[in-house]
């Protein structure tokens, strides 16, 4: 049972310091960046894709929920090995839009974006499937991962937001 020693004072201070630093970072990210992985241009494409996947209607969509923050922070963490797939997928998506419509994806009107995705070139399908999966995770997953702001999807589904969800064992992203 030595592995499960009590929380030491040193450990407590480490956690508290990380918590303070992380919340500062997150609040910056909410408004203007900085992105952990995306360039501002890439972020525009991903945010438009997320909104296509879960659009706003009588309930908020992926943009309001901040689903892109989930994807961005995981690309700097657990999804690190998908970085190049995102980078090249975004570039290919925008290139295909420029060829077809003369503009990158995010610049197209919403309905034209939808039409483009409904007739997506085969080569872009794996990339779009990946974005769908991650958008669903962010929007319908736990609010602690930043993609389901204010538990908006759970409110939409009508399931109670229980105040104690686990014993607050949040894990903070590692530095670097």
């Amino acid at each position, binding site marked *: 049972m030595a*592995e*499960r020693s009590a929380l030491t004072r040193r450990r407590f201070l480490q956690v508290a310091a990380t918590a303070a630093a992380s919340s500062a970072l997150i609040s910056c990210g909410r408004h203007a960046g900085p992105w952990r992985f995306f360039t501002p241009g890439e972020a525009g494409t991903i945010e438009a894709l997320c909104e*296509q996947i879960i659009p706003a209607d009588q309930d908020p969509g992926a943009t309001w929920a901040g689903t892109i923050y989930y994807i961005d922070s995981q690309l700097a963490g657990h999804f690190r090995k998908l970085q190049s797939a995102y980078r090249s997928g975004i570039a290919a998506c925008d290139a295909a839009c420029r060829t077809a419509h003369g503009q990158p994806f995010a610049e197209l009107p919403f309905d034209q974006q939808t039409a483009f*995705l409904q007739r997506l070139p085969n080569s872009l399908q794996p990339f779009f499937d990946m974005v769908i999966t991650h958008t669903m995770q962010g929007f319908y997953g736990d609010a602690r*991962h930043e993609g389901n702001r204010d538990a908006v999807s759970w409110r939409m589904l009508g399931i109670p937001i229980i105040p104690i969800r686990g014993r607050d064992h949040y894990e903070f992203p590692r530095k670097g």
Partner: protein
Amino acid sequence: MSLPHVNAVVIGAGAGGGVVAKELCEAGLRVALLERGRWYTANDCRKDDLRNQRTSVLGNNSGPDDKRNPRVFVDRDAKRHIVLPSEGGYSNNAACVGGGTLTYGAMAWRYQPKDFRMRSTYGALEGSTLDDWPISYDDLAPFYEKAEYEIGVSGDVSNDPFKGPRAKPLPMPPLSPTREYEILKPAAQRLGLHPFDLPMLRNSVPYNGRPPCMRCRWCVGFVCEVDAKCGTHNTVIPCALATGLCDLRLGCMVKEILTTEQGKITGVSYFDAHDRLQEQPADLVIVSGAAIESARLLLNSKSRLFPNGLGNRFDWVGRNLQGHAYSGATGLFDFDTYDDVGPGANIAICDYNHGNPGLRGGAMLANEFIRLPYQAVDMPPNGVRWGKAHKDFMRRAYRRTIKIMGPTQEMPVFDSRVQLDPSVKDFWGMPVAQLSGYQHPHTLEIAGVMAAKAEAWLQEAGAIQTWRNLPGNGVSGGQHQAGTCRMGNDPKTSVADSWCRVHDTDNLYVIDGSVHVTNGGFNPVLTILANAYRASAHLAQSWKGKV
């Protein structure tokens, strides 16, 4: 340099190993219980929908860790994939004290008498190693009862006419019904079926000094916040430690089982929590690492007398890897079926486990555990995967669906197997498990019929739309992994004898799901626990010279 001698080394503190450690310690043996993972408690409960043993898109919550423990998965096109514990294809169970019992949904099924006599009941099947167990339901029944009372089971199986004979009722009453239960029970009765309160290794009343289930929605895949789920971590392992004879060592990865030139098993070598190589001499070695890792360890333990690994003279170690071919159906209703009362699964039928015309077996059918929102995003039946239509469906259907699923008993396949990968090594430099194989076509045929039965139940219950959920044709395993070191009386077609002792050895045992010949149409954990009680009782008696 070797450590002080012990009577027994038990490898793996999960369902099998936890029971073995307690039984041997209570018989007076000095036991080293080696566990590669950590000991989590209710304080580690972390209800993260994206990071748990059921949905591990951001990692798992009770091991093993992604950095040190890769495997290789070979798909149906013979393409090799290096897979990590949190990824699909890995067939992960867990790596922690309690093993899968820490985070399971906790269904507590006894197999039926026919499940131990599949070959005698149905005859041989081409392309399958379908066979009888060397033991019967009656051999196991007293130990099923012991597991039900010592670990703790709630439910009421008195209305199940298909169960094997039992001496006592379950020790705890069922949890109170949910809305799904109230909808499904009369529908099953109208169809002439026999629904009942399924058994769960879960406190419904205070038991063993722990409180009852608080009915939350985060159950299967999660550590229980109030410690109401009963596993080996909060029952038998603390009992083993209380004897003073059990030395539980965490973070210990066994490298190989050691043998003398004459073939006598002398102990194990393992990497401790600081990755130092240790040697632990022992009179007995018990492997309880679950079907994939137990087979891997035997295969990795090569010597002059055992060039292909221990117990593997006739190439049966790692063969017949099986889990369950889950199948069922989802029904959409025009009223709310969801009441947010966990754990969800609570009503079952065993009408279709056997006696289906033209089929060799079947499955228990039960309502599913609560689907957390992300687990429901693949639900729309019509190929709608994104956009407004998907969001509309989620909003309309999330609280109005019931899902009925069943673990279809698999026809074992010789070529569904665990091997050592020729090139990929784990963190410690040992060859990793390579998984390959497929489902027998008859398994898929049975699964299809089970899905139709589930669908009919939902339609009778008033579903306005239903659709089937069918298994894939790839090798299964996962949390129900079994079969890789099957028990048998003939050493040419099995790995261990009926007491779980590995053929060709005097003092090496495999006690976990690996020894299952077939895996029942049920969740296997109670059978693993019961067989561990049975095998270790025999082991303790023979240790004392009584057998």
